[in-house]
């Protein structure tokens, strides 16, 4: 038996929204300590990894580990049925055939319950690791999202180059070329701060199609962490307050010219 109640159901809705374009079917893993999910996109170039700790839930009960295979498109349809100020409960029996989702709103006196059928998904789990060393960037998630979207208008590929004090995003498209340079700032609030730490200088290219998909998670956190390393995929990480984190991994592109 599994049952987890989240006071702010909207957080879960945002999570689903943030991954629904990247992956279609996912296995949600339930353990006694929390909920996690790992899935790769069809081309195996990008991966999303979600970790939610039981501590962030209003209540959490999981008797034994289970895996719930879910079609994200269908899950999102159900998430849209909940109101933004509803609480949300996820529930599943032992050897479940479906996942129950309950939206509750005491103020409005509303109680809604939906079942979503589970599916069997054959996926392989990768043992992902965080980047150590390399270059790290921490900045406001909204700003990062804006840069990615605008560069995507110009080109499908972005080249990211880091140095001690600077990260440069450059594009070359049919209509022209350009670059955005970001240096460290000491803003008054945390959101205004840009922190760059570069132990190793990198110069890599990535598909903006994926990077813009990742920024769908901006609603979950005001800050984003990007880490780059020559020896590993790019990692874009969004912390979800008190609950855990949503991380994306992306393999670098081999140049089109090859």
């Amino acid at each position, binding site marked *: 038996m599994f049952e987890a109640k989240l006071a702010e159901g909207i957080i879960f809705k945002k999570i689903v929204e943030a991954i629904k374009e990247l992956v*279609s079917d996912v296995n949600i893993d339930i353990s006694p300590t929390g909920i996690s999910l790992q899935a*790769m996109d*069809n*081309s*195996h*170039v*990008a*991966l999303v990894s979600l970790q939610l700790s039981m501590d962030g839930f209003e209540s959490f009960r999981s008797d034994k580990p289970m895996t719930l295979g879910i079609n994200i498109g269908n899950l999102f349809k159900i998430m849209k049925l909940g109101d933004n100020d509803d609480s949300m409960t996820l529930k599943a029996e032992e050897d479940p055939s479906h996942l129950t989702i309950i939206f509750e709103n005491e103020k409005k006196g509303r109680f809604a319950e939906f079942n979503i059928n589970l599916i069997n998904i054959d996926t*392989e*789990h*990768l*043992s*992902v*690791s965080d980047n150590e060393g390399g270059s790290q960037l921490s900045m406001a998630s909204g700003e990062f999202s804006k840069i990615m979207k605008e560069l995507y208008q110009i080109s*499908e590929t972005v080249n990211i180059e880091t140095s001690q004090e600077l990260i440069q995003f450059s594009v070359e498209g049919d209509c022209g070329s350009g670059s955005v340079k970001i240096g460290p700032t000491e803003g008054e609030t945390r959101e205004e701060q840009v922190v760059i730490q570069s132990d190793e200088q990198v110069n890599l290219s990535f*598909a903006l*199609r994926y990077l813009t998909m990742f920024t769908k998670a901006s609603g979950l956190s005001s800050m984003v962490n990007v880490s780059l390393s020559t020896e*590993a*995929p790019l990692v874009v990480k969004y912390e979800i307050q008190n609950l855990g984190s949503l991380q994306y*991994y992306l*393999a*670098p*592109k*081999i140049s*089109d010219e*090859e």
Partner: protein
Amino acid sequence: MELNLSYKDVSKMKSLTDKSFDPIKDAPYERHQHIPFSLVAHACQIIEECKGEKSQDLVKEILANVFRTAICLKPAELIPLFYFFICRLGPEYEGIETGVGNEMVVNAVTQACGKSKTKIREEVKKIGDLGTVAAESKGSIKSLASFFKPKTPKIDKSMTVLRVFETFMSIAKRKGSSSVGDKTNSIMKLFTDSKPEEVKYIIRWLEGHLKIGAAEKTVVSALARAFTYTPGDPKNFPPSILNYRKKKGETRFNEREAELDETIKEAVCVFPNYDKMIEALLELGDSHVEELPKKCYMRVGIPVKPMLAKPTTGVNVILKRFDGIKFTCEYKYDGFRGQIHYQKQDPDDPTKKKIGIFSRNLENMTETYPDAIQYLSENVDEKVDNFIIDCEIVPYDIRNKKILPFQLLTTRSRKNVDIKDVEIQVCLFLFDILYLNDQNDIIKKTFKERRDIMKATFPEEEGKLMYAVSKDAEKFEEIEEFLNDSIKDSCEGLMVKTLEENSTYHPSKRSFNWLKLKKDYLETSLGDSLDLVVVGADYGKGKRTGFYGSFLFACFDEDAEVFQTLVKAGTGFTDEDLKKMHEVLNELETTDPDPRIKYKEKNIDTWFTPKLVLEIKAADLTISPTYMAAHGRGEEDKGISLRFPRFIRVRDDKKPEDCSTSDQIYSMYRSQQAVAQNDICFDDY
């Protein structure tokens, strides 16, 4: 017992062309495994490399050895394996198609390999094959698996023939506009899970052609060879005979192979269902393959490949051919070939009749002609239990007793035609019978006898069911006169058939016993050629890679000073012509059409500035919804196009404005007899 889970490496396998290939020991898989797709890709690759004199035999040998491994180790997967090589999913008449267009394949490849669509298109233009481009792109992707190790030890996830086939099947089953995303995803999954050399042939398959130089006929012959080497043996493993050639010697082997090849091909003609045929072959096993016709025979409900006629160039050819034997001339109607199957009691529902209509290509057209179905269901004699007849389905004006142009039928949709919506009725012009009341030897009778049976079974009714007009002729003048009559009566020409000698019905054969004589062979109509401007082209594929494949032609409308599209043509060009054309036209390429070009829909890859004039000959003119020539002069919102256009020469001496005009084309169209005959009805619509 410990099972070996991973596959053997195909590149280290014994050569598939080796005479001593052992379908069990040398196969890259074992009985408990599915057939790996790598075997198919490997076979395709080496077949593609076969060149020279004996290559056809080598191709057969390679395919036969691939099939032999399946006969021995995985008989159940022989059917999907076979279908892969002929780029189909099932019998033609069942019409199972993936519904995947070039656009969708390109999109899937683009998304799966992360390259831009423009880049992919550019490479396709350069190499001329999307399969190769996809394979190369696949090889250049860096996936996350190269960074992170899987948590669980991986079982062998090699692509299998079964998975490829099942994915294609599931793609075929998904219908509707929302299915596009699902289909694209399925293709992407195949792309991701296959190796580059496998991707190449999966993509080519989706494009409808493996391009390995092995036609369906060769694949079927290879199947015959495989079963000659190693007859199926459902009861024993290993099969009692593994290598008939080694056991009985070369001569016996060759004889038997030829015999089986013929048996299979004949069976396929009257029973074009490879699933059932392969099942039968596997079941019959050693020395009983000649029993195949007893399992695969003509039956109501399964279309027979229709007999076809050889084209002729003139009346004298016919006289030479039919000198001294009895023959008949029949009107060749300009309609759709229809093979009608009738069963008084539907086995699934005895209270109902079961009637099916199949096209020349064995497609099920039953839903297209509810008017014909209704007529048959109400008018066939009670005493008739079942039959298969061959006829031409022709649009017919029952009030004026006139045949209408067949184009009027092309507007009918393939499926779900409601009888209430049918405005233009069809008439069935019967000309042959293949099967009647469970007698399947009717095709062995002479044509004269068959025609008598047909006439005795089906009474004529004006505008509903009529016999093809025929005349048993002997003299040259008679044929020519009859040919002219046929054209006056809005037919395409004549079919000339032997009446008694050599006159059995040969399914699927393009036989010299049926000759067709069409009006353009006599060069009566459209003797004059046209001078037309090239305004667009498709990029060439295959042999024409790097050049243009076919060209879009336009005529000049003097009133509006515009170029109206008329026809697309790619025949009549020599390689040298194509090279020269490419040199000239390359300079004239434009992304957007020149404003003077008037067209209805873009059906080509690139546009040209109207400049180059070519001389074109054609069989005749026809109404077309796709082209703009003489638009507005004749039918509402329809233009005129050419049938069977072919290139004659370049007209360097002509300016584009000097080419054939819309007025000229329209008056040529008007003077065509078929149109003159139908003038009244055209004005009616």
